[in-house]
């Protein structure tokens, strides 16, 4: 279970990116975060990953107070969370396969596991033939799919997707949404930040709407029209 307890994030004085958010997400839930650009979707995900520290409030992941962890403990939590970053965050000096493998290496997986899982997950996102390309040799959508593969490869408890289909065409988007749903059915909590009405309306899952850092609506079977 993920629990945001009255969380606020203030980057600079008098404008809060996230304001007094209290939010409860059950295990195996599929949640979409929507809202205008600048509403605070990315910030909310960053707080859970501790990429940013919250200004106020506490965040729990399965009873563990994430906000209280020291820098030396953070990687344990991060290994349980797979993240597709809005700006991909691929390592430029590593190939697609090496980028995916890095997340496994960091988690202490064996070489045998890595050799087996990396090609499999890249195949899953349709990049089997681009395994040895460096990020600068990939299109925006391809980079995004490498990022998705990396987020999935450690079979995380929680998957954070920050606009994971932002650079994909409708065919690829459909494929990725299907993939996310399948991951979710296999037991992973998915939190998806997106602008894409199409995605949300086909998902037919819980939708949380953010506006200027505050939750303005939270529907169990939501649609998004904005």
């Amino acid at each position: 279970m993920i629990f945001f307890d009255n969380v606020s994030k203030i980057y600079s004085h008098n404008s809060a990116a996230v304001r007094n958010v209290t939010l409860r997400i059950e295990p195996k839930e599929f949640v979409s975060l929507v809202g205008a650009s600048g509403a605070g979707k990315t910030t909310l995900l960053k707080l859970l990953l501790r990429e940013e520290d919250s200004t106020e409030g506490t965040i729990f992941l399965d009873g563990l107070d994430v906000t209280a962890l020291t820098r030396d403990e953070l990687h344990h939590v991060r290994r349980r969370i797979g993240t597709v970053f809005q700006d991909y965050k691929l390592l430029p000096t590593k190939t697609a396969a090496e980028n995916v493998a890095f997340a496994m290496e960091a988690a202490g997986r064996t070489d045998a596991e890595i050799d087996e899982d990396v090609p499999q997950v890249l195949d899953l996102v349709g990049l089997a033939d681009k395994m040895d390309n460096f990020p600068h040799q990939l299109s925006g959508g391809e980079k995004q799919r490498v990022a998705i593969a990396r987020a999935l490869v450690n079979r995380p408890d929680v998957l954070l997707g920050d606009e994971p289909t932002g650079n994909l065409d409708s065919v690829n988007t459909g494929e990725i949404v299907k993939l996310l749903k399948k991951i979710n059915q296999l037991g992973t909590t998915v939190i998806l930040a997106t602008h894409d009405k199409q995605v949300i309306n086909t998902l037919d899952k819980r939708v949380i709407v953010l506006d200027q850092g505050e939750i303005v609506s939270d529907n169990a079977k939501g649609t998004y029209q904005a």
Partner: protein
Amino acid sequence: MKFITLQRVIRAGFLGFRRNGWLSTATTMVMTLVLFVLGNVVFVGAFADTALRSLESKIDITVYFTANAQEPQIMAVKNEIEALSDVRHVEYISRDAALARFRERHKENALIVSALEELGDNPLQASINIAAIDPGHYAAISDFLAGKKYPVVEKINYFENQAVIERLSSVMGTVRGSGAILTIILAFIAVLVAFNTIRLAIYTVREEIGIMRLVGASSWFIRGPFLISGVLYGVAATAVVLLVFFPIAWLASPKLAFLVPEFNLFTYFLSNLVQFSLIMLGTGVALGVISSFIAIRRYLNV
């Protein structure tokens, strides 16, 4: 840390060193420069030491005794001198020994030999030759002897050499002092340059370090390869600097031997090669590892 993780850290360190070709080369070159400075400091130190010791060995005090001084009286003086804590070595040269030496030295000179024959009597004085532990102590020893006013002592020749000896010992003090200061300044500059080069190398990959943290890598998993690269900079720089020093020592050796005959740079280099390499390696590796450790710290704070 799991064994597989340690293996990966080491492999990544080697890979990073190879893949970042020009950066590794640049860092290694700067490190080589540091070791080159250090190596020269060691050489100059050894040269100065030999030169100073060679000069020092040429300084002494000679006490000359009157012609009628008896051996027991001279021995009494010698014993007192030997008892002084500043004295390293005392040599007694009897009148007969002095004559024998004189003859030996001038045996080719027929004029001197025949003059001696004609003289019949031994014209030379008995003397005691004193070497001090520290050249700065000659004045004190000489003053002590003069203060005793031994009736059998005719002359203390330190007074004649006094000016030369005092200047020499003050020059030696200055050489040692400024050598130490210069060493410290040079080493400081060299370390600063090497550290900043490594800092720059790590600065260029700061974003990647952040990404690695966000996808679940521990600090040590990220830091490890940079420390390994630091070790490699030190090892590569040591190899280069040793290769550079071989021809330099070979070429400079005769020129330095001209100044101080007792000093052979190339022999010194060869006979101290193991020690010298270990100093270079230790400095290079420590510098590489410590610099990397300090430089990466702030970027791991993600």
